[in-house]
C-alpha cells in the first residue's frame, strides 16, 4: 500500500461512464490560459470538497495528489 493510505479514500472506480466524465473535465479547461485554469480548478476543488464533506477523505486525497506529483508511489 502507498504511504498514508488508511482506507477512507476510494481507490477503485466510482463512475458509471468514466471516459465521459474525464473528458468533460479536460474539455472544460479548453481555451483557458494558465491563470484561468488555476482559478477554474480552485473553484472546482472547493465545490467538490464541500460536497465530499469528509475531512479524512480530503486529507488522504491531498496526500495522494502530492504523491502523484512525483509520478506516484513506487513501493506499492
Amino acid at each position, binding site marked *: 500500500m502507498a504511504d498514508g493510505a488508511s482506507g477512507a479514500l476510494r481507490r477503485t472506480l466510482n463512475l458509471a461512464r468514466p471516459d465521459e466524465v474525464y473528458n468533460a473535465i479536460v474539455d472544460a479547461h479548453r481555451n483557458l490560459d494558465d491563470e484561468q485554469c488555476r482559478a477554474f480548478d*480552485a473553484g472546482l476543488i*472547493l465545490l467538490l470538497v*464541500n460536497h465530499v464533506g469528509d475531512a479524512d477523505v480530503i486529507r488522504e486525497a491531498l496526500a495522494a495528489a502530492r504523491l502523484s506529483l512525483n509520478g506516484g508511489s513506487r513501493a506499492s
Partner: protein
Amino acid sequence: MSSYQYRHYPYRRPPELDGKGKRRQVVIVGAGLAGPTLALALAARGVASVLLDEDDTVSNGSRSICQAKHSLEIWDRFGIARRMVDKGITWEQGEVYLQDRPIYHFNLAPEPGHKFPAFVNLQQYYVEEYLFDRCLEEKLIDLRFCNKVVGIRPGPESVSLDIETPDGRYALEAEWLVACDGVRSAVRHLLDLPFPGEVFHDQFLIADIRFTSELPKERRFWFYPPFHPTNSVLLHRQADNVLRVDFQLGRDADPEEEKKPENVDRRLRQMFGPDATWEHEWTSVYTFTCRMMERFAEGRVIFAGDAAHVVSPFGARGGNAAVADVDNLAWKLARVLAGSSPASLLDSYCSERRAAARENILNSTRSTDFITPKFPASRAFRDATLALARDFPFARTLVNSGRLSVPTVQPGSPLDTPDGDSDWLRGPAPGSAMVDAPVVNGAGGFLVDHVGQEFTLMSFAPRAADLPGLPEGVAGLMVARGSAAPAGWTALHDRDGLLRQRYDGRAGTAYLIRPDRYVAARWRRPDARELATALRRATGHG
C-alpha cells in the same frame, strides 16, 4: 489632530527616592490594557500592587477598537463596563463585499439574553481612561506615571527593578513582577528572552476620521472594492462619530507617501463620494508580526498581554487576549500570595494562556493568509471562494476577513476535571468559558452578575435537599423557583428557562466555575468526594 483630549496624569515623587521604600508583593510594569486590569483584579481580592508606566497618558492613537464581550464581563466587575457600552458603539453584525456587492452577512450574537453584546467599539484611549479612573480611586493600587523600568535583577525570593523618573533613579523590590509592557517589552529585552514568530510584510493604512453624516453601525469588509480595486478595505465605527478605515496597501507601498493627508484624502474621497466631509483623527501605516514567548514566566517574572504574545489585528484578538491573560493570572497570584495554593498553580497560567495564544495566532494567521495571500495558488483559492460566495452558502463561511475574538477553549488543563458523565447535550464543558443567561434574584439580572471573585458552584436544584454539600470558600448558586436558599447559597430564578437550556441543567446538575469564569468541572449529581477532588485540582493541589 485628535478630538480626544489627552489628559496628563500627575506624576508624584516616589517615596523610595527619599529612602522610604519597602518590598512590594506585586509590581506591574505597563499601564496599557493588561496592567490596569490586573491591578484592579488583584485589588478586588485584597492584593496591593504598584503599577508603573513610562509616560503619563493613555494610548497614543486608537489602536484597539473592538472590545469583546468577554473583556466587558471582566471590566464589569470593576464597574466600568457600562460606561464603555454607553460611550461605545454596540455591534454584532457585519457585511462582507466583493467589489461593489455584498456577498456575506454575519451576526455574532444570534441569541438574546446576555448582559453584554458580542462587541463594543471603543477607542483604546477611552478604555484606558476608564481603567485609570478606577485605578486612581483604588487605595490598593499605587499607579506611578513617568516611572520607566530600565533595569532588572531577578532573584530566588524577589525581583529588583531600576526605575527612572523625572527626579532620578530608584530601586524597587517585588515578590512578583508582572510585565505588561507591550510588544516591545523592556522587561523581556532586559532579561534577553527570545520572542520567536513570524513577520508579515503587507502594509496597512489606518485612517481614523471624524464624520458628520449618518454612519453605518456594522463592520464592513471589502475585497477589491471600486474605490481600492487592488486590495481590501475594512470599515469600523467608533465613538464620537469616528470611523476607522483600514486600507491594505501591499508590500511595496511607501509608508511616508501613503500617510500624506492629501493621499489619504484622495482614497477616502473615492470611498465616500463627493459630498462627504471629515476631519482626521489619527493616521498610521502598520505591518504586524505573530510571536509568542516560549515560557510566560521566568522565576518570579511573569509576562502578560502583548509582552508575551502578539497577533495580527484581524479578529481583534490582541487586547482582548491581554485582558483574558490577566484575568486568568489574578486569582492564581492572589491565592499563591495568600498561601492557599502552591506557587505551581502559576504553571497553569502559562500552559492555559500559551494554548490560548496559540489558538489566537492560528486564527489570526489564517485570516491574514486569506486577506493577504502569500503565493499564487493561495490567491487562486481565495478568489475562487469569493467568487463562489454569492451563489453558494458554504463558500460564504469560508470567507475569512477575521474570525472575531471569542473566549479560547483550554482543553486538557491540569486544573480541570474532564466530564465523567457522558450524557451532556449542551453546556460549556470543562476548559470552556461559562455562558451568560438572564436570571432573577430579587431584581432582574444576569448570571455574570452572580459569579464572583472566588469559585462558584452552580447547582440546578428544585429543592434544597437536592443540593450537594458546599465546600468551604465556594459560593453556591441554587437554580430554583423560590427565593429561599440554605446558608452559603444564593437562589437564582431561571426566568426564561435559558439557564437550564444553555447548561443542559437537570435536577442535580452542578457546574464548578473558576474565578475567571471558566468551567472547572460539571456533574449530573456530584458527591462530596468528587466535589472536593475537583476543587483541589482546580486550586493547584491536585
